[in-house]
């Protein structure tokens, strides 16, 4: 009630200010007149009465003012008046204002950008209800050399599903590609195959239609799909009546069950359809670790409890399900399979967290340096107003008011910087998400949201306060007696200021050095990574695309092979193609992980051989990608067509088992006890298949059509990636010709994932590239700001001591000495800063450990060059003003004052 009246009265007073003032003046005047009248009525002469009233009641003006000051609106008015004055002052000094606002805007913009990323990727929960209870069912299998095994087998899934006590539900999922026909042009789509509890675990319901039921998990039942929102829009024109219709996938008919909400995302996977992941329970065996599992913890259950629960169930699985063909029933125990559940979010973001926190820290340091710079500029400004402060103080203005005014100036700068910073952050985030340079997880979720806006405003105000604090601390309590004495600043005051500024510069130099060193380390890392021989050459000249020949189109294996071969032949006829091959997976895209037995290694019955990577290839795969066959020969078409049991292994594989590559030739391998042996016909150079910063895995290459044993039919890879070496990569005519070549063989085959190996290669290094670019930006910004800071201090010190210099020069000091004073001063500042920075770097750079490759966190050369770079820059920054000092004409300076 009364609050409302307060606000209402205040607003009315603000609006009718003039009216209100007039009324108040009238009222006060009336009061005084009445007082005088009363005196006169008591018989005092008018003159006397006036005098007495003045004496008793004081000045009517001051009475008016004291009434006027009442009310909240009055403070508001004072505030706005001050603000107007502040802006007028800032406008009067545009170079200062623009420099500091822009410096700050860059700092705040960069910090806000990184904060938005950190917040979205690391801090915000996954977009599912109570997502902290979602876990990835990951395991470890040290028995076969797998530290982390992301995949899980259906047997474990069923065991967990039926016997666990700690999970509310568990599901399997899998990403596969299938071909849609009879809808538009044949098209390859990515399908997320899931068991029926998958959506309930995530707490996602279809936008309309029905979700999957337990019956959908059975391979004997009819097949169905859910459409993603985007696919529904683009392929069905958002038709409401899609439910119940059919869609043809790989030649089979699937009933459309419903449409998923547009917000549905899962693990950064891009997929168009959701289909049931079906099994025949009676055909499940212990193996087939090719799916991924998620679960939802029951409320109040910890990861540890769930791990214990699952550890108990692994032996159970061995009793329920038969071993995989050719394996022992103790295969899980042999592989030492144990659960290491992790929160789904951690599973998604992986080790990106380290990098983002490091970037967040470095960018904040840039902001800190920017603030230091502005603090220095503000100090100079305040020093220029020192006389004004003293006079105002002497006339009775409170220190609080002075401090308020100084703060208002710095906070205004901060807020202006903040707003421009927001614009910068917005643009930066747009670029970041659009360019995909970072390869960050959850990239799609990143945008400038309310958190980022609040964050940037907070740091804008905070930095405003922080760099305002120094001038306030120095000037808000001017020493009147010292200040009013004499026209100039006193010597001690001067020295004090200089010390504050020097400390700021030392901080700046130290911080800049830390950033320079860390960006140097990152540059070294990138350099080392780019110097690693990936196992292929000139990836930018390798055009790639994928073709899958579904069973429904071509049933016979030999025909599939013939078709793949025909496509390859046709492509090789395209002008500009030097060679062409295909493989089950591109380099850097991994492959199947399976154990390998070597004939001359006797594995005891319980011993699992190590898991190796397997890829199926066509002839000339190695010559196409530019790998070197060290010993032996390549796989030939004849090998493939005659189904010869041959293999090619990488050098590191050969060395581990047989020490020298030559010895490995002719040795025989197989994946399983019940398979025939395959002869090693070639040894090929290593392939960095897991990224340049990982050791190259041991790879076994098999013919694309491979016979496991004389009894069983051969296995063919239906989904292959073509690699075409040509200097016409990514030109639209070239891709058109490739399409025509494929269509000439089979017009119903969709081409997917058109790319170059170069793009795959840079994507594999995206994280390092991203961190390096950001650190280079941070490092160079800090270097520039640091140099500006030193320049400013030295130049200011020159201007302060211009008379002294004049005297020195007049007395015959050599110019070199005069300049030397200032250069020495700069070097001392830089030296102290460097020293502190080096020590800090020595400790801080260890935090970067996980980002580095091929360079130690305390790499001497990097430290040396960063220091040298900073030192030379600061030398130049102090030399320029020092030289000006040396050129001082004593006649001019001495006459000046």
């Amino acid at each position, binding site marked *: 009630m*009364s609050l409302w009246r307060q606000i209402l009265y205040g607003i009315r007073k603000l609006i009718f200010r003039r009216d209100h003032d007039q009324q108040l003046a*009238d009222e006060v005047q*009336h*009061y005084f007149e009445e007082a005088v009248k009363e005196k006169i009525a008591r018989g005092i002469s008018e003159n006397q009465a006036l005098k007495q009233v003045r004496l008793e009641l004081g000045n009517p003006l001051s*009475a008016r003012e*004291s*009434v006027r000051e009442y009310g909240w609106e009055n403070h508001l008015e004072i505030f706005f008046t001050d603000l107007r004055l502040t802006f007028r002052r800032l406008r009067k000094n545009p170079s200062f204002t623009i420099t500091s606002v822009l410096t700050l805007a860059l700092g705040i913009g960069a910090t806000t950008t990184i904060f938005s990323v950190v917040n979205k990727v690391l801090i915000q929960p996954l977009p599912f209800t109570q997502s902290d209870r979602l876990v990835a069912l990951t395991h470890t299998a040290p028995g076969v050399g797998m530290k982390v095994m992301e995949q899980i087998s259906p047997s474990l899934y069923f065991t967990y599903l039926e016997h666990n006590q700690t999970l509310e539900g568990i599901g399997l999922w899998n990403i596969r590609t299938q071909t849609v026909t009879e809808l538009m042009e044949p098209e390859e789509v990515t399908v997320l195959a899931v068991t029926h509890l998958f959506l309930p675990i995530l707490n996602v319901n279809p936008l309309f239609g029905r979700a999957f039921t337990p019956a959908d998990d059975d391979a004997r039942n009819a097949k169905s799909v859910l459409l993603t929102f985007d696919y529904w829009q683009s392929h069905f024109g958002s038709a409401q009546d899609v439910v119940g219709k059919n869609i043809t996938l790989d030649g089979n008919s699937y009933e459309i069950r419903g449409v998923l909400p547009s917000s549905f995302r899962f693990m950064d996977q891009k997929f168009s359809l959701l289909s049931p992941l079906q099994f025949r329970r009676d055909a499940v065996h212990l193996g087939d670790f090719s799916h991924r599992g998620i679960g939802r913890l029951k409320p109040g259950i910890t990861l540890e409890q769930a791990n214990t629960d699952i550890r108990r169930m692994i032996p159970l699985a061995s009793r329920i399900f038969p071993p995989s063909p050719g394996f022992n029933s103790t295969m899980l125990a042999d592989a030492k399979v144990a659960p290491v559940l992790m929160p789904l979010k951690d599973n998604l973001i992986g080790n990106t967290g380290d990098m983002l926190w490091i970037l967040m820290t470095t960018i904040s340091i840039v902001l800190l340096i920017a603030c230091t710079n502005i603090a220095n500029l503000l100090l100079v400004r305040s020093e220029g107003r020192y006389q004004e402060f003293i006079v105002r103080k002497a006339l009775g203005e409170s220190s609080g008011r002075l401090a308020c005014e100084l703060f208002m100036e710095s906070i205004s700068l901060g807020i202006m910087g903040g707003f421009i910073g927001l614009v910068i952050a917005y643009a930066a985030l747009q670029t970041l998400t659009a360019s995909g340079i970072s390869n960050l997880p959850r990239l799609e979720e990143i945008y400038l949201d309310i958190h980022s806006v609040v964050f940037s405003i907070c740091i804008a105000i905070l930095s405003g306060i922080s760099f305002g604090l120094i001038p306030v601390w120095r000037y808000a309590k001017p020493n009147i007696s010292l200040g009013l004495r004499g026209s100039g600043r006193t010597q001690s005051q001067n020295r004090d200021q200089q010390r504050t500024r020097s400390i700021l510069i030392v901080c700046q130099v130290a911080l800049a050095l830390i950033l320079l060193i860390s960006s140097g380390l990152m540059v070294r890392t990138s350099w080392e990574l780019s110097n690693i021989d990936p196992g292929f050459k000139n990836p930018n000249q390798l055009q790639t695309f994928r073709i899958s020949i579904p069973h429904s189109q071509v049933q016979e294996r030999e025909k599939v092979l013939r078709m793949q071969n025909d496509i390859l032949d046709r492509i090789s006829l395209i002008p500009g193609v030097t060679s062409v091959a295909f493989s089950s997976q591109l380099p850097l895209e991994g492959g199947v992980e399976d154990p390998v037995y070597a004939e001359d290694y006797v594995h005891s019955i319980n011993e699992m051989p190590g898991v190796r990577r397997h890829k199926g290839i066509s002839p000339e795969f190695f010559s196409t990608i530019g790998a070197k066959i060290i010993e032996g020969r390549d796989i030939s078409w004849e090998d493939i067509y005659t189904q010869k049991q041959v293999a090619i292994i990488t050098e590191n594989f050969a060395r581990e088992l047989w020490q020298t590559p030559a010895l490995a030739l002719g040795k025989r391998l197989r994946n399983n006890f019940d398979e025939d042996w395959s002869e090693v016909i070639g040894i090929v150079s290593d392939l960095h298949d897991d990224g340049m910063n990982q050791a190259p895995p041991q790879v076994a290459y098999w013919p694309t059509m491979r016979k496991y044993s004389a009894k069983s039919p051969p296995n063919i890879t239906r989904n292959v990636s073509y690699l075409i070496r040509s200097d016409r990569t990514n030109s639209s005519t070239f891709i058109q010709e490739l399409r025509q070549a494929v269509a000439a063989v089979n017009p119903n085959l969709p081409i997917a994932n058109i790319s170059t190996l170069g793009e795959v290669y840079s994507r594999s290094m995206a994280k390092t590239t991203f961190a390096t670019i950001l650190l280079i930006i941070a490092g160079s910004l800090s270097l520039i700001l640091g140099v500006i800071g030193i320049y400013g201090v030295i130049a200011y010190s020159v201007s302060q001591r211009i008379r002294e210099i004049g005297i020195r020069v007049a007395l015959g000091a050599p110019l070199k000495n005069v300049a030397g004073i200032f250069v020495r001063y700069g070097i001392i500042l830089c030296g102290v800063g460097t020293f502190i920075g080096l020590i800090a770097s020595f400790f801080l750079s260890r935090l970067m450990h996980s980002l580095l490759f091929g360079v130690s966190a305390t790499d001497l050369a990097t430290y040396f060059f960063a220091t040298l770079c900073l030192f030379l820059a600061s030398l130049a920054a102090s030399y320029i003003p020092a030289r000006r000092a040396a050129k001082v004409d004593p006649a001019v300076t001495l006459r000046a004052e």
Partner: protein
Amino acid sequence: MDEQSTDVIQGTLDMLILKTLSLEPLHGFGIAKRIEQISQGVFRINPGSLLTAFQRLERMGWLNSEWRQTENSRRAKFYSLTTAGREQLEAETKQWTRRADAITRVLKAEI
């Protein structure tokens, strides 16, 4: 100034104004004079704080003000008590009496 006159006790000015106005609407000087008279010159009120108090009380909803002609045909701002003001006066008077009695008792007590 009289030696006798003192500043109004902190926080009681509002009560004095309300009390004065409980008889009839008055203008600023009238109120000041009335308080001075009734207190026999003990309380002398300075116009700055009096007029500020009016602002405050008006905002609290205890006073109304209007510009009126005085008997000697001058325009003056007259203040009058609202119903809420009357209630407030009652409450404050009660409070004050209770306190004053208590203080008196403490001061008179023979320890």
